[in-house]
């Protein structure tokens, strides 16, 4: 093996190690979703089966936990993306008193430890005697998702050619038509990305949710509770299910963008 050969391939090998390191745990989770554990814990390989996948909801409580998580994630990501898009438009387009402060506050949840967010929210809800449950989870999720949505949509708006909107108005479109026909289609990819990101962040959030969930059990909380007494392989099934859906959605988004870019 010559020195040139090493030089040429050292980066490749290094990258392979790196991706292996990142993906190996996920591969293990995926593999163990097909395991047939003898005891209550799914830690040693005992044999292959499809039954965990066909009986994904065989564990009591798992189905309602998954449903709650999906419901919250769906509503929270739509609300957060809607709010975030409007906030991004305001922050990029208009100079107003307190814009810098708003920018800072929007960024704050991204940099605050989740445990602090969760504890503060819980204090807030208790002080206002808000019953904990579906609504408090939703409020908390919208709150931390908004920041991600704002950041994602803002990035797209910064490079937006304002002359396009002026051109639309010049051609007879009023403010609303201009937004519908020109602004929205052009920032749609960013909005879609924000939606996917918010969904992914909401659906697997544990720390904040644990504080504000009260009696309700989302999927991450179910896993946490179950892990103390047992780790049924169905947890792996749901986890990998979410993972595959998320990755597929993102790939679809990328493919769609590329195809659109090629056609254009």
């Amino acid at each position, binding site marked *: 093996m010559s020195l040139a050969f090493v030089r040429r391939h050292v980066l490749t090998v290094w990258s392979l190690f790196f991706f292996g390191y990142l993906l190996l745990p996920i591969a293990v989770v995926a593999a163990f979703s097909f395991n047939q554990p003898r005891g209550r814990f799914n830690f040693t390989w005992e044999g292959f089966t499809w039954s965990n996948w066909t009986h994904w909801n065989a564990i009591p409580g798992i189905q309602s936990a998954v449903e709650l998580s999906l419901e919250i994630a769906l509503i929270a990501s739509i609300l957060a993306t809607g709010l975030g898009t409007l906030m991004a438009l305001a922050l990029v387009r208009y100079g107003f008193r307190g814009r810098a402060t708003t920018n800072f506050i929007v960024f704050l949840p991204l940099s605050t430890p989740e445990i602090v967010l969760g504890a503060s929210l819980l204090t807030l809800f208790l002080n206002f005697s808000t019953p904990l449950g579906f609504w408090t989870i939703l409020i908390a999720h919208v709150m931390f998702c908004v920041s991600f949505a704002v950041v994602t949509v803002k990035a797209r708006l910064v490079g937006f*050619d304002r*002359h*396009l909107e*002026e*051109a*639309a*108005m*010049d*051609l*007879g*479109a*009023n*403010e609303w*038509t201009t937004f519908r*026909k*020109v602004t929205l*289609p*052009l920032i749609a990819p960013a909005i879609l990305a924000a939606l996917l990101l918010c969904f992914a962040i909401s659906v697997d959030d544990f720390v904040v949710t644990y504080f504000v969930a009260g009696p309700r059990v989302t999927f991450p909380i179910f896993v946490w509770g179950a892990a103390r007494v047992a780790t049924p392989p169905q947890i792996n099934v749901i986890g990998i299910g979410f993972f595959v859906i998320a990755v597929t959605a993102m790939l679809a988004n990328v493919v769609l963008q590329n195809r659109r870019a090629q*056609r*254009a």
Partner: protein
Amino acid sequence: MTAVTPVADGAPATAEYDIRLIGLTKRFDDVVAVDNISLDIDRGHFFALLGPSGCGKTTTLRMIGGFEEPSEGRIELGGVDVARLPPYKRDVNTVFQSYALFPHLSIFENVAFGLKRRGIKGGDLRKRVGDALELVGLAGLDRRKPRQLSGGQQQRIALARALVNRPRVLLLDEPLGALDLKLRKEMQLELKRIQHEVGITFVHVTHDQEEAMTMADRIVIMNGGHIEQVGEPSELYEQPRTPFVAGFLGVSNLLSGTIVGDDRVKLQDGTEVRVPTAALAGRQGNVQIGVRPEKLRIGGGEENSLSGTVAESAYIGVSTQYILDTPAGPVTVYVQNDRLGAQVANGERLTLGWSPDCTFVVDAQEDT
């Protein structure tokens, strides 16, 4: 979708001016971009707003288009004040410097955008879009996206998209700035042809004096938020009224002097020159006289003359440019190379002559 009818549509079509700007002013914070300008733009003319960058020409255009709200003043479009109306209620259309074609829409949809807002559809829509694309020589490209077109083609589409609405006035914001020289020359002639064909008033903003001279019937020269002079290209070139216009449009020799008679100015070195009487009307004291380099002849035989030594010369094929040191100041001369071996060496002494008719008069420089 309800049709948005431009308000100015209902205005009497007999108004002799398409646009009247009255005391128009635009301030950005404490900077005055456009300072109290008034201007009448006649129907069917090709107008150029010409000036260096930062002179307020683009701001003026954007106020006519409705993208900037004037701080003061009126903008009359066919007799109706539109200064406070949004762009979509004005019967003007704009060709933007960056073209601003909608990247997510096909060429057809781009050109049809304005017509659709007015509720035109079906066969009528297709015919009018087709006609507009034909007018700019790009029929058959209607299914492409803007990105698939070259810069020159995009420029034509931007023009078609604006013209298809048959606006009262078409505004052009340096639309040729991004094109290479050859394409720019082509488009200059093309724009002029299209303007003749459609007969719509064009208001064209540019900083390129040659472009303005080539295309416009009338040129407005702006500087520092003011209008310096308005006129036909030849009028501005032959009789500039301010030192700025004389220097901005082509090359001028400006020589300081003092008025000593109805038609006489005494230069600093004592030479007296004759100028048209009209050029001195209403003036007194110190002035500058101007004469274009190509109006100067080597040798005597003209009523006005000045002598000097050749300081520099440059042979540029069709002519030779000399800079002479004269007692009245440096003077540039263009001499046609109509004979072989007629070059004059540096250091030689020459006498220059010119006709009083070719002399113009502008204000004295502030510092003299």
